[in-house]
């Protein structure tokens, strides 16, 4: 089972991103669940979403405390939220950041791989709005390989349409990877 914690702020499509991972996984004949945690619904507030993906039925319906992957949809969260807390050994961090050497941002010794790109700039350029979720999903797939790319593309197409499939692919292609040795 892979456990993923998504950190976003209201309006970025964080909860939807988690759900799309589950949709693509289930479409591949596997299991997944996605649990959003938020307070009063409003734009701009921090949102966390917890995703579990597995080849077998998943029983746990609670929050994820030791993720295999942390997916950070907005750079501000690197400062404002405990995004690396409880990371599992040999885990992955997928970051939206303008920093060119994102490995320097990692404060958890358990993270093995860092994947990053400037998703906000890409989103503004391609969508005219800073909605980074599909770009980050592309980056996630490239970084982890845990979800089938073709299935996820289909889900993105169904949820948001052709333009977001392009942003998804852009995320996949543009993401930079660094492995700690």
């Amino acid at each position, binding site marked *: 089972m892979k456990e993923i914690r998504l950190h976003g702020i209201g309006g970025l499509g964080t909860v939807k991103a*988690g759900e799309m991972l589950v949709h693509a996984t289930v479409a591949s004949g596997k299991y997944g669940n996605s*649990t959003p*945690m938020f307070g009063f619904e409003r734009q701009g507030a921090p949102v966390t979403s917890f995703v579990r993906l597995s080849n077998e039925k998943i029983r746990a319906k609670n929050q994820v405390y030791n993720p295999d992957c942390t997916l950070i949809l907005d750079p501000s969260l690197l400062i404002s939220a405990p995004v690396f807390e409880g990371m599992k050994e040999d885990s992955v961090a997928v970051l939206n950041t303008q920093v060119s050497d994102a490995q320097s941002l990692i404060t958890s010794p358990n993270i093995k791989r860092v994947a990053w790109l400037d998703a906000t700039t890409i989103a503004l350029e391609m969508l005219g709005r800073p909605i980074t979720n599909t770009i980050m999903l592309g980056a996630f797939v490239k970084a982890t390989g845990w979800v089938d790319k073709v299935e996820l593309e289909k889900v993105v197409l169904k949820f948001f349409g052709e333009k977001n499939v392009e942003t998804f692919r852009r995320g996949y292609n543009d993401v930079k990877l660094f492995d700690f040795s």
Partner: protein
Amino acid sequence: MATVKVINGNMAAAIGAKLCRPDIIAAYPITPQTPIVEYLADFVTGGELHSTVSEVESELSAMSVVTGASLAGSRVFTASASQGLSLMYEPYFRASTLRLPVVMAVANREMISPQTLWGGPQDSLTVRDAGWLQVYVEDNQEILDTMIMAYRMAEDKNVLLPVNVCFDGFYLSHMSERVEIPEQEQVDAFLPTYHPEHILLDPLKPMAVDPLTTGALLTEYRMKHMMAQQNALKLFEKLDKEYGKKFGRSYGGAVEAYRCEDADYILVTMGSMVGVAKDRVDEARRNGIKIGLLKLRMIRPFPAEQVATVLAGRKAYGVIDRNVSFGWNTGITYEEVCAAMYRANSFVPNIAFIAGLGGEDVTGKHIDCAIKMIVEQAGKTECHPTIWLNRKDMGI
């Protein structure tokens, strides 16, 4: 062939209701139940469902509209939670004493004060003595399946009682997962059309409903009501098996005993925390602790015999409640379990836990702590003071 979808708990409840083809739907929005109302409105507007929806101005009216429609002969559906449920308390109680087979989904939410909107079954457990049947479920598939069984149970001639299908707000209502959705024909074959006979407002068969009634007759109605609840207990087990045969999924009826056969210790709980608790029971077993889990599905009627049968003769048991029973300083289901054990003339050392109030997460660590304390309780004859697992001083 069933279709597989990724849906949240509210959608599972809405699709479950839709498959049962209610004639009249009335519900008022309240977090975390609101999407149910919206989904059903979409189904009706989109032509997928031929129900009449009343966009009522309050929960009081939601329950009143569905009880009125049920009195006239319709199959009905409503949903609510928390303050909404308490606002409808007056007609809620009456739906059961009028023996109306209303089915109502509850996306369980904590009661205020302080102001809160997160999950927990305090709302429906508080009204457990209003004569309804109450079933609490663990995941989204179980929500959908239980909705379908609920109508069969509610409308059975030996039952004729309203049913609550209860699921934790947010943890299930807003959690998306894989759910198999049966075909309409399959559901139609399992759930026949509703033909009310016992009570009906129709000018072609004039009768008065609820004339002033003496205590002697009222006593009789209450006895019949209680017997109908006991009938429901038996029927629910039977329906669960029948459902299993037809749809490939069953849940054990009023309780599910998980790895209990050879268990020295039993953890009793219900709702969305059951899944993580099963995981921790497996882990404890790997570490040599012979523990099982008893999942309470039906709270009304309370499956006292089944519970006592599973717990009798064990070294210890513990109950985790996501609610409180004011005045007892424990959770509600703990008291119910104790009463069942007393009636079975059976004492087993035990311990009460309260966790997850106001939507706090019940983690694997909380369950591990509970398991450890249950094991330590073996051999004790005095009741352990209630353990509040989420309290900071527990250090979990």
